[in-house]
């Protein structure tokens, strides 16, 4: 459960922080936030799952399997987290 609303900018920061653990060699400034992340960064299914688990751990926001499609891009993920935290 989250205790406060996550602004979209903060959500983006969390997303990048977790990504840096999984793909430390990636230069964050080169990521296109609107392009499929797994293709862009060559993430495999385990990397991708670790990313979701990391975001869940950092924000407390549960990401049901049916909502995984929101997490194709960083934009989509940030919006989902921001909306989910606003709903409480």
């Amino acid at each position: 459960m989250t205790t406060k609303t996550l602004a979209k900018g903060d959500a983006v920061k969390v997303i990048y922080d977790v990504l840096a653990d999984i793909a430390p060699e990636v230069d964050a400034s080169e990521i296109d936030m609107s392009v499929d992340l797994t293709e862009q960064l060559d993430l495999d299914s385990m990397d991708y799952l670790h990313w979701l688990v990391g975001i869940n751990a950092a924000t407390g926001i549960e990401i049901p399997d049916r909502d995984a499609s929101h997490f194709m891009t960083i934009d989509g993920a940030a919006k989902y987290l921001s909306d989910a935290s606003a709903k409480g």
Partner: protein
Amino acid sequence: MIDFTLPSLGADMDEAMLVGWLVSPGDEVSRGDIIAEVETDKGVMEVECWDEGIIDELLVEPSATRLAVGTPLARIRPMSEAPAVEREPDHEPVAVGVAAPPPPHVTRTVSPPVRHLAHQLGVDVDSVAPTGPEGTVTRDDVRRAAGRRRVSPRARRLAMDMGIDLSVVSPTGPEGMVVVADLGDVEPEAAVPTVATEPAADDPAIAMRRAIARSMARSNREIPQYSLVTQIDMKRALDWLNDANAERPVTARLLPAAVFAKATALALREVSELNGHYVDDRFEQSDDIHLGMAISLRTGGLVAPAIRNADALTLDELMAALDDLVRRARSWKLRTSEMASATATLTNLGDRGVGTAFPIVIPPQVAIVGLGRVMDRPVAIDGMLAVRPTVDATLTADHRVSDGHRGGLFLSALEQRLQEPEKL
């Protein structure tokens, strides 16, 4: 007395450098304890001990010297062998020498220079196991204790290349970990050049490429291999997986890779001549199924550590094991037993686009299973055209041990298992 030797390191790696000891003389060890770290062509690995007893003597110091598999590294006194002084209580106390473990709570003698060194290295001198005469803590004891600090894999490799003695580096990383930035602070005179018997360690990426090349060249040279492919309908398995995951929190989610691994392990149980090692011109079938999982490293290269007894694990256990293995593979924390024990391997290239894989066998194993991407394909079902998610499963196996008929039975067993995901 048992000699603890450098264990087998996996396919075509017969040398390693001792990076550090995690035990000292006098420490008690039991089966499965991680007691040392070695650097191989495939990165730093943790070495487990498969004997029980007390570390009597460390025979090799960490250095850049390449040690052959089988080199004695330490002596372990089994628990059943009581120390000499206890065995013969009537005699005058005999000189037990440095080999004896220090008695617990021994009064330590610490000379001021050694105490100063311990302070410099951030080592609690009262926790150091003394190896000098009459419980004297030596400079080496302190350095050894300091060497047990955590060191990031990159810093360790860099220190090796630069010939820097890690015990003289002041750590600034989290939890006292030595990080790359710390190496720059080492004064030239403090850096103790290590004596290498070979040229300095290569770029790790090149070393890994060479290790893969050795193994794969040997595979192509020695193994007459055949490959079979079958297309497997994945609808049932994926529907079942989606249902299972719908109820699960993200931390307990199952990936198709776990389903594939379990199905492969169970199918290997049915066609046992695909599971084992070909050594000295004969096949040694394994009763245990240790499934090697090909894991690509993000910076390039590949390792294939084993999930031990994969057929006996539940899907949840297998998923946890796979998760753990991938994390450790990518942070260079694999164990030698995992690298050496695989009895057959699964490579799952399907995450990224590949339709059909044609892997080659990793010696001394005799079979490898390759999976392509699960993709929607047109298939004929009951005389009608349908679109179903399917996967191309390839078996490559060693003709010295099996033939296409048996290989076909394996793929058929794999297909069957994937049609009954609830039984996995």
